[in-house]
């Protein structure tokens, strides 16, 4: 599975930083390690910035497509994203290099923090800091979503319909509290069917 990552037709029209991809499995390991260690409050925001804007391994469109797949498939989204990206460039070895890079060091850190937190949880300073970090983490996710909204402009559904599906998804999850599986089965199937009809 070392198929070339992209072909001419898939290029980012906006001309974001483009590179042929990681040079080796250790490049993958260290890139994912780096982005995971910057990923306080979740890795997604950093992953978008590192893989698309900085490294140019994926265009925005490729990133959002890969993210779409990793959200539909069960499992942690960024881990799935790492598996897919690693597998695309270096096969199984690449997939495991990306995920190992993403998990190994953070796992040690988070377990050390867990042990420490048991000691200091009662301190208002500590619980306050956790609150503040949580609020920022929410903001980072929303900012990532806003940045990826640009890709709806070139969506084959057409921008108004694509935006409508995004809004409906939000409403279904946040207001109607639908289980995700219903959202994917209902809205997802409809959107894919329309896209299929409009795909040459």
């Amino acid at each position: 599975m070392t198929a070339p990552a992209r072909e001419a037709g898939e290029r980012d029209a906006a001309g974001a930083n483009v590179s042929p991809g990681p040079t080796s499995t250790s490049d993958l390991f260290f890139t994912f390690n780096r982005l995971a260690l910057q990923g306080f409050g979740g890795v997604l925001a950093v992953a978008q910035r590192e893989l698309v804007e900085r490294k140019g391994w994926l265009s925005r469109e490729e990133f959002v497509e890969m993210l779409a797949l990793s959200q539909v498939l069960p499992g942690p989204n960024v881990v799935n994203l790492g598996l897919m990206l690693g597998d695309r460039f270096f096969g199984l070895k690449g997939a495991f290099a990306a995920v190992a890079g993403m998990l190994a060091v953070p796992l040690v850190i988070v377990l050390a923090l867990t042990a420490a937190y048991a000691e200091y949880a009662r301190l208002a300073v500590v619980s306050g800091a956790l609150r503040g970090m949580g609020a920022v983490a929410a903001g980072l996710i929303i900012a990532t979503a806003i940045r990826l909204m640009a890709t709806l402009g070139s969506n084959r559904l057409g921008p108004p319909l694509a935006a409508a599906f995004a809004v409906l998804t939000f409403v279904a999850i946040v207001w109607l509290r639908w289980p995700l599986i219903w959202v994917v089965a209902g809205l997802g199937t409809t959107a894919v069917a329309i896209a299929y009809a409009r795909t040459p």
Partner: protein
Amino acid sequence: MSAMLHPALSGADLLGLFGHFLVLSLLAIGGAITTAPDMHRYVVAEHHWISDAQFSASIAIAQAAPGPNVLFVAVIGWNVAGPIGALATMAGTMLPSTALTLIATRWGQRRRDTRFVRAFKTGLTPLTIGLLVATGWLLARPYVDFSARGIGAIALIVVSIALMLRTRVSPMWLVALGAVVGALGWA
């Protein structure tokens, strides 16, 4: 030392824990966090291995620490049964979804120019974006109200969004800012 606080889990309990997370892995559409309510049901409500507060703190710690949020699963396992518990929950969570993702991604990659795979990606992209906004919203909601701290949290969220979109500052610094503002009691 905190190992002593862990309830002693029998081999059968550990296997049960592993098996439960194994099943949840395949149900975790939209990310591991979507199965948190069911993990809560199993380890808190049903087996009383950890308390409600420990469960919530497990998620908060994993979010505050660097790395993927899925590590909250390891923290829950650790709180339940120490290192072996972390191994049980983490392996259970990772193995099935990893295998499925690799199989599906290869299947899709071979057929990526077919009409169906292209339509599949096109159709799901808007859902992904809606889902991301919803995740941000749900993460933000516990902090947002009209108390002074709630307004501080809103300000923190707005500032994070603006700086992420307008500057190239690393998200790490924004989280550090959040920690300081929160520690001072302003958010």
